[in-house]
């Protein structure tokens, strides 16, 4: 029994335009009063009765008319069908499991991407995560060795926070692509999801690690894990910040990406190899992966209406009742 419950909407909002009607009626009544068109008893020299203190009853004489207008307003509001929605969504989806494997070697600091390769990868991965629904996503970082930054989770808030924390140089430098894939596969091993994928971002050549990348790819393949490999780096040379005695100096370093290896890994596991030469390119690649690995999501939303006209009508009736009682008793007016 609330007049204004939270989230009040009207089924027929156009009816509310009729609220102008009582106002117009009020104006009309007032004009009639001024034009002397109302019923009244003739009485000589009324002006001599006007200049005296008015009694309470005289002051209130227009109250019934006012109450009628107010009742009309309440009825109009009730007619507009005030209602609230209990809305909700039921999401049925078969999520897939994704492990993002990110290269954090110092070469990722090269600034052929803006602001640099690592930051660009982080922010685009973040966007990618936001676009997914009910997929379990994990995060693995690697350089000389691979570590799990975030285990498989659907809690994207935690995931995104952990993604934000990734910094280059926390691990010993190097590029252990084999270890990275093995770690990623390890994360997905227990998974019962229909589709399991690894997104591998790297900008270098495998030069460390105990596991051969090709072997790792075969392991992935045997676990039914598809590996999408993304080579990050422009073609030719990339400006690379070097810490020297006189501050940060930029040096153009040739970009070396083991493209045949990455291609092979992708082919072995049934994934795909992409080459990103700039922010725009990386974004496109993520979009494509997003499209390729669309999980089936069924969203059924429902809305349950609750009508709220009742208190309004009750109020209108109450107002009319008061008007009736007043105009027939205390404020009865002749003629």
């Amino acid at each position: 029994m609330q007049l204004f419950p939270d989230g009040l909407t009207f089924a027929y909002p156009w009816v509310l335009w009729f609220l102008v009607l009582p106002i117009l009626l009020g104006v009309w009544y007032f004009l009639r009063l001024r034009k002397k068109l109302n019923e009244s008893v003739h009485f000589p020299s009324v002006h001599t009765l006007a200049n005296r203190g008015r009694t309470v009853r005289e002051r209130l004489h227009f109250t019934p008319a006012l109450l009628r207008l107010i009742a009309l307003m309440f009825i109009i509001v009730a007619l507009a069908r005030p209602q609230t929605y209990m809305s909700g969504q039921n999401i049925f989806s078969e999520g897939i499991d994704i492990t993002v494997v990110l290269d954090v070697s110092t070469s990722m600091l090269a600034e052929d991407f803006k602001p640099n390769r690592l930051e660009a990868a982080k922010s685009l991965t973040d966007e990618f995560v936001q676009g997914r629904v009910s997929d379990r996503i994990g995060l693995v970082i690697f350089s000389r060795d691979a570590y799990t930054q975030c285990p498989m989770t659907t809690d994207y808030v935690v995931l995104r926070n952990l993604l934000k924390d990734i910094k280059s140089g926390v691990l010993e430098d190097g590029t252990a692509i084999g270890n990275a894939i093995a770690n990623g596969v390890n994360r997905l091993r227990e998974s019962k999801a229909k589709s399991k994928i690894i997104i591998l971002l790297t900008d270098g050549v495998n030069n460390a690690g105990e596991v051969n990348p090709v072997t790792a790819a075969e392991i992935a393949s045997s676990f039914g894990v598809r590996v999408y490999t993304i080579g990050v780096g422009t073609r030719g040379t990339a400006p690379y910040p070097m810490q020297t005695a006189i501050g940060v100096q930029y040096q153009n370093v040739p970009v070396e990406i083991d493209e045949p290896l990455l291609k092979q890994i992708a082919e072995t596991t049934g994934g795909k190899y992409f080459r990103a030469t700039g922010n725009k390119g990386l974004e496109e690649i993520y979009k494509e992966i997003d499209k390729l690995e669309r999980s089936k999501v069924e969203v059924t939303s429902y809305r349950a209406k609750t009508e709220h006209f009742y208190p309004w009508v009750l109020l209108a009736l109450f107002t009319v009742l008061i008007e009736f009682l007043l105009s027939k008793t205390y404020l009865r007016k002749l003629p």
Partner: protein
Amino acid sequence: MLSTKEILKKVRQIEIRTRGLVNHLFSGEYHSVFKGRGMAFSEVREYHFGDDIRNIDWNVTARFGSPFIKVFEEERELTVMLVVDVSGSQNFGSDLRTKQQIAAEVSAVLAFSALKNNDKTGLLLFTDKVEKFIPPKKSKSHSLRIIRELLSFEPEGKKTNIKAALEYLSKTITRRAIVFVISDFEDTGYESIIKSIGKKHDCIAISIVDKREVVLPKLGLISLRDPETDQEIVVDSSNPEFNRFLYERALRKENTLKQLFAAANVDHIKITTEKESYIKSLIGFFKGREKRR
């Protein structure tokens, strides 16, 4: 309004109703109250025992050898002017008749009395201007016409302007006349002109009051409208303070009128709209005036 037939019927009714009044109650009083200017010589006749010897015409007596006296007759043929208010406020009455109708009946009584006593009667109807002027004449049909006009006249104006009416009267009626001003005197600003009318003519003011102007029944809120100004007001008739205000207002007005008429040397008859009560008031007035002479 009323059709011609209805008006004639009404005129007839008033004529019959007032005839008794005119013939019996006022027959002597009217004549003696309104006297002519003086005595005019009429004829010479033989002296009878008991005649005033001062009136013997010695020249005629000498010629005929027997005493003759001069006979004088009162110079009659007065002019009676009925100045009647037909403004909106006159259209009010809580009893059988409105002030307007009472005014018509009083006028009829006066007109027939005048006719019976050989006086000329004229009529002036006014609102905020002079609505109708019928110059004084002496005939029965003229008197009936006056009554008909009083009953059927529909004024153009609504407001009251007694001053304008009296100014018009003082311009048109130059000889001394008997002027009856019949109104509810819901007006101001006529004080000086009524004084000059009082000096020039034999003026009698007949004020008509309805009892509802003094006391309203306790009915709660009543919406009142002034028929003259169209001002509207809602009053609380159950409120004792309001009732006191209303009563005091009426009292104040009556006192003001009394003082004004006394100062203007104008006789005052107060008439209420209650049934036939005006007869008593008129008789009382005539009696009182006779005594004063």
